[in-house]
């Protein structure tokens, strides 16, 4: 029996209602479809006590996710730490800073496990046996892993020049990996054609309305971990631009069903790499819509989406919430990755460097408030993008096995290497 609170899918432009099927856009105006819930019914059944008695993973908020009954895959996703980041805060100038650390999300060390858990649970409900995605890497890892655990066949399309660890971390799960000689946006266009032609479940194409909902769980967790309240400021990295909107949606849903006392007033700040910054450029210039970037050029490949599907909505949210957006250079990204690692012990991927560096810039510009409670969203693990750090960290000092050799190093000019 269905235990879902989903009423249907609603076009974000014209509000036309559709039944729940694997389709991502409105057939009247091509607008994005979004899941429509019966919040009054959820409010009637879900309490803090009920929710807190469940395991700490994303499925404790199951009523606010679009599966039809119990999830069947990705059962241990989410429940990542919210870390009080005093040392990073001190270095950056924030007096009340937190890091939401999805670099340790299970199973593939990025926030993408949240969206894939929902998308592939839906794929199984729809009876799909072949799934896929267009990916800049993290999504590839996650779809391949969770599809393997669910016994689904997967086709993963990536730009051919991705980081080696992200390619290996996809192929190892037995996925059919297709490296496309082109940008992410070209891969994405090809996948849109493949998804509809073959009727496969592409998580970020025809399953996108369900997939995107998984990101809300990052917002749910932040609010619950802060003691059922929302932070004053959140900094979120932007690629397709969906995550920032879904964190906001998560906060508002918790208020709507009565789990948050106060209505959220969080200011949202978006972070991009300067080599691919369509959304932050649009925000800074006051443009309603982003202008697509034909050839992204940044070490932060996970955010290298030149034509973000949610760019319009991300820009709108940032403006309306009173936030701002900023972009940062490759050097700023690397330095911020090192700063996060050496202050909080968190090795984030390049996108984490983007978030930390953008927060620093926004604070220096006076766009952010140093005293306001702030959460930085770290979305992926540094081991996946270690190539970006080549020559940035010292090589280990190599010695023989004698105490004298160690002491020669120890009393010398440089400290023993940390590696």
């Amino acid at each position: 029996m269905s235990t879902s609170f989903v009423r249907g899918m609603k076009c974000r432009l014209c509000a036309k209602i559709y039944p729940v099927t694997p389709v991502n856009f409105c057939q009247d105006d091509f607008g994005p479809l979004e899941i429509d819930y019966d919040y009054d019914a959820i409010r009637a059944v879900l309490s803090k006590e009920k929710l807190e008695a469940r395991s700490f993973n994303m499925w404790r908020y199951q009523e606010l996710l679009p599966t039809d009954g119990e999830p069947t895959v990705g059962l241990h996703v989410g429940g990542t730490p919210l870390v009080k980041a005093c040392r990073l805060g001190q270095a950056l100038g924030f007096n009340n800073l937190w890091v939401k650390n999805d670099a340790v999300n299970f199973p593939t060390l990025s926030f993408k496990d949240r969206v894939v858990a929902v998308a592939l649970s839906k794929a199984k409900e729809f009876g799909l046996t072949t799934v896929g995605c267009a990916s800049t890497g993290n999504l590839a890892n996650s779809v391949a892993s969770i599809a393997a655990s669910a016994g689904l066949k997967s086709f993963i399309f990536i730009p051919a020049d991705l980081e080696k660890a992200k390619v290996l971390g996809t192929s190892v799960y037995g996925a059919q990996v297709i490296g496309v000689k082109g940008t992410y946006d070209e891969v994405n266009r090809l996948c849109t054609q493949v998804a509809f032609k073959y009727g496969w479940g592409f998580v970020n194409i025809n399953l996108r309305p369900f997939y995107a909902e998984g990101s809300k769980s990052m917002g749910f967790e932040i609010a619950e971990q802060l003691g059922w309240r929302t932070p004053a400021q959140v900094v979120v990295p932007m690629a397709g631009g969906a995550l920032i909107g879904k964190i906001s949606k998560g906060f508002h849903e918790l208020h709507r069903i009565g789990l948050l006392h106060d209505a959220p007033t969080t200011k949202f700040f978006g972070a991009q790499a300067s080599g691919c910054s369509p959304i932050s450029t649009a925000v800074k210039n006051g443009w309603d819509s982003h202008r697509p970037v034909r050839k992204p050029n940044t070490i932060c490949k996970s955010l290298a989406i030149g034509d973000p599907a949610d760019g319009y909505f991300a820009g709108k949210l940032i403006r309306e919430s009173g936030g701002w957006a900023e972009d940062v250079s490759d050097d700023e990204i690397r330095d911020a990755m090192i700063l996060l690692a050496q202050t909080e012990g968190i090795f984030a991927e390049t996108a984490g460097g983007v978030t930390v560096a953008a927060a620093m810039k926004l604070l220096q510009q006076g766009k952010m408030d140093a005293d306001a409670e702030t959460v930085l969203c770290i979305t992926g693990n540094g081991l996946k993008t270690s190539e970006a750090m080549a020559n940035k960290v010292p090589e280990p000092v190599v010695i023989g096995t004698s105490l004298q050799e160690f002491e020669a190093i120890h009393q010398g000019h440089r400290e023993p290497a940390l590696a």
Partner: protein
Amino acid sequence: MAVKVQIPTPMRPHTGNLPTVDVSAATAGEALRELCKLHPAMEQRLFDNGQLRRFVNIFINDEDIRYLENLDTKIKDSDDLAIIPAVAGG
């Protein structure tokens, strides 16, 4: 110029279930207008006050027309024009 217009699967009810529609046109915009003449239900779905809707992307031989000359992009004989929903990826 003869051009083949690719229709995304969910929109095919508006083109008599045809996956592609053959038209003759000199530019991308003209090709879309010809498509709408043959299949008038596509007009309001593709355009809003004469402007291409926000979530419609048009590709000529796999290149986004926004990187060319938008609807004025010239078409050569036997080009492919694909209508691609923009809400994908990320």
